[in-house]
């Protein structure tokens, strides 16, 4: 048994996050209730340290812990995005937990442990580490979904998420075990070699592909494996919903692309057909069902399903083309998820803090006349929704633009056209909320109308999300070059 210093340095960010999580969990019972905010600041400090360490690991391509962990630009890209998103979630939670009177120190510990799982996922070079990372993330999220224990919906969300998540993990493991039987190893590079040698005609390989696609489909919440999403997103505390919708989706995409490109890249012709079908179903169902929702959290849940569909276009296009074109497709996926993170997080931050009589205003009706009561909040919501709809000059447009460009360059113009049609449909339900906010008169008495509960932390989160949406919309080149640099290559 020997652990080299290089190995430990390679997982230094993970060690910092896990250490901070343990510290938070240990400090929680000692601290007085009034000083529990300290835990959040401790979490943020750990994240800041991680940003520094991971930034220095951006270049290179090294393995650690006998090829279990890989350090490359791809992993660093996702990790940096995850730190950013987690940091914003922690700040949002600072305000949200107070408003909900949920004062649980373990909350921040669980956020950090979930983050550790996500980091293991995106930097795993072995199906074993990727699977264990997924489980670590999911288990933490199951608990966080049920934290609002006085509300039946929150517990229902937790239970549903747990049962379906465990089920999907089982399917994922099935796929992994078949691949292990095929290649004799769980290492992605060995699996890739074995597939190149044996060819892709093996029916066991096809079965493993399908099972892995189903397993990851659950985590990515794509149709037809999306059933849990609306209930879980609606029932969970809103800060947790934001974390699930953004961070867990980003990490799942990171692990998903890693497995399918680096491990199963040789079979890309097979899986790109599979994902074309999933992608079309996701776009159609996500966008159409979102129209009829009356709860804004549910609507955003369906919207997040639809956005996973847009991102899948990039995967499909890249899967059909080797070489440089493939890189463009994957880079557009990375860019899309990064942009999606900012706008979705911003929208959820606003929803969590728009309250009437101490309760979250969750119905779209509650937003009537918001522009008159809270002009600034309504404006922020307007920007996030316009960006989600993909209207220029916001970042949402840039994300869709690069995805559609990749599709056209890859010779799949028809897919781009279909996606544009669905994007137009999606504008309907996003702009409906804008219309409710700006055109409708508020109902009821002044006291019963929803208002934004502001706090410095919340303002900072909203400002960051808005800056991300606007600045990335105007100057996308920096992020784009980062994404092309980080995107995986189909060999």
């Amino acid at each position, binding site marked *: 048994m020997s652990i080299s210093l290089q190995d430990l340095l390679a997982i230094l960010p993970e060690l910092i996050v896990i250490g901070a999580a343990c510290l938070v969990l240990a400090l929680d019972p000692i601290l007085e209730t009034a000083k529990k905010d300290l835990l959040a600041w401790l979490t943020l400090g750990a994240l800041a340290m991680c940003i520094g360490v991971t930034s220095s690991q951006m270049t290179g391509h090294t393995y650690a*812990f006998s090829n279990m962990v890989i350090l490359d630009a791809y992993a660093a890209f996702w990790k940096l995005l995850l730190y950013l998103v987690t940091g914003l979630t922690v700040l949002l939670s600072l305000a949200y937990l107070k408003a909900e009177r949920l004062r649980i120190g373990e909350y921040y510990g669980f956020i950090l442990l979930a983050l550790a799982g996500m980091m293991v996922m995106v930097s795993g070079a072995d199906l074993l580490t990727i699977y264990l990372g997924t489980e670590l993330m999911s288990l933490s999220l199951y608990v966080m979904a049920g934290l609002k224990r006085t509300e039946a919906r929150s517990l229902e969300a937790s239970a549903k998420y747990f049962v379906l998540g465990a089920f999907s993990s089982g399917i994922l493991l099935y796929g992994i075990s078949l691949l292990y039987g095929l290649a004799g190893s769980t290492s992605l590079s060995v699996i890739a070699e074995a597939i190149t040698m044996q060819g892709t005609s093996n029916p066991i390989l096809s079965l493993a592909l399908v099972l892995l696609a189903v397993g990851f489909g659950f985590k990515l919440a794509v149709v037809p494996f999306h059933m849990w999403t609306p209930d879980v997103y609606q029932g969970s505390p809103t800060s947790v919903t934001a974390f699930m919708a953004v961070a867990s989706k980003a990490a799942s995409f990171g692990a998903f692309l890693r497995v399918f490109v680096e491990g199963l890249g040789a079979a890309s012709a097979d899986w790109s057909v599979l994902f074309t079908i999933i992608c079309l179903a996701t776009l159609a169902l996500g966008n159409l069902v979102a129209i009829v929702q009356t709860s804004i959290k549910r609507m955003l849940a369906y919207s997040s399903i639809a956005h996973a569909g847009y991102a899948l276009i990039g995967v499909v296009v890249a899967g059909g083309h080797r070489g440089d074109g493939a890189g463009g497709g994957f880079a557009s996926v990375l860019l899309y998820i990064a942009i999606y993170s900012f706008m979705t997080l911003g929208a959820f931050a606003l929803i969590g803090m728009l309250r009437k009589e101490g309760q979250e205003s969750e119905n779209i009706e509650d937003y009537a006349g918001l522009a008159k009561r809270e002009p600034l909040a309504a404006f922020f919501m307007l920007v996030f929704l316009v960006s989600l709809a993909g209207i220029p000059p916001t970042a949402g447009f840039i994300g869709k633009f690069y995805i559609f460009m990749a599709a056209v360059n890859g010779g799949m113009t028809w897919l781009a056209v279909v996606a544009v049609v669905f994007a137009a449909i999606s504008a309907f339900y996003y702009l409906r909320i804008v219309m409710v906010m700006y055109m409708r008169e508020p109902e009821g008495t002044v006291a019963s109308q929803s208002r934004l509960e502001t706090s410095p932390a919340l303002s900072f989160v909203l400002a960051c999300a808005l800056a991300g949406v606007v600045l990335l919309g105007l100057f996308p080149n920096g992020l784009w070059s980062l994404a092309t640099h980080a995107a995986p290559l189909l060999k």
Partner: protein
Amino acid sequence: MNHIFFFYFAAVIAGTSVLVVALRNPVYSALALLIMFFHVAGLYVTLHAEFLAAVQIVVYAGAILVLYLFVVMLLSIRSEERYHNQLPVAGLLGVTLCTEVLLLLIQSRTAPSAPGRSVEAAAETGNTEMIGEALYSTYLFPFEVASLILLVAMIGAIILAKKDIIETTE
């Protein structure tokens, strides 16, 4: 000598398995299952898979069976409600499994052996040592991640079951 042990374990496993489904009291069924688990572990010992034998007892007899008993006691199932016309399903599954076993027996001589270290190497150093060595060298990182998963599961269960999370005094 080996054959005597094999036939003893095999006979008890088959006998207790029948008892698990045939006994009318669920608690007796669970106890028959317990005896079966122990004999399966014995079978592993005759195959020089000591680690597997220990795991079999710790996990199945120790954890899973206790879980069964808890469920049986919590639900207090009455014995006559146990069978909801499961015969067709059970028959179908049984026939499928039997065919599978037969196929495996026929093919076992031609099937390729599993990759990785050979059986002889395991017999030399003892398989428990080999598993430990692999866990603490090659698989050290996943092993530690798994320990974190257990930590999360433990704390999560405590949080979800604990009383008065929500602060009432403001």
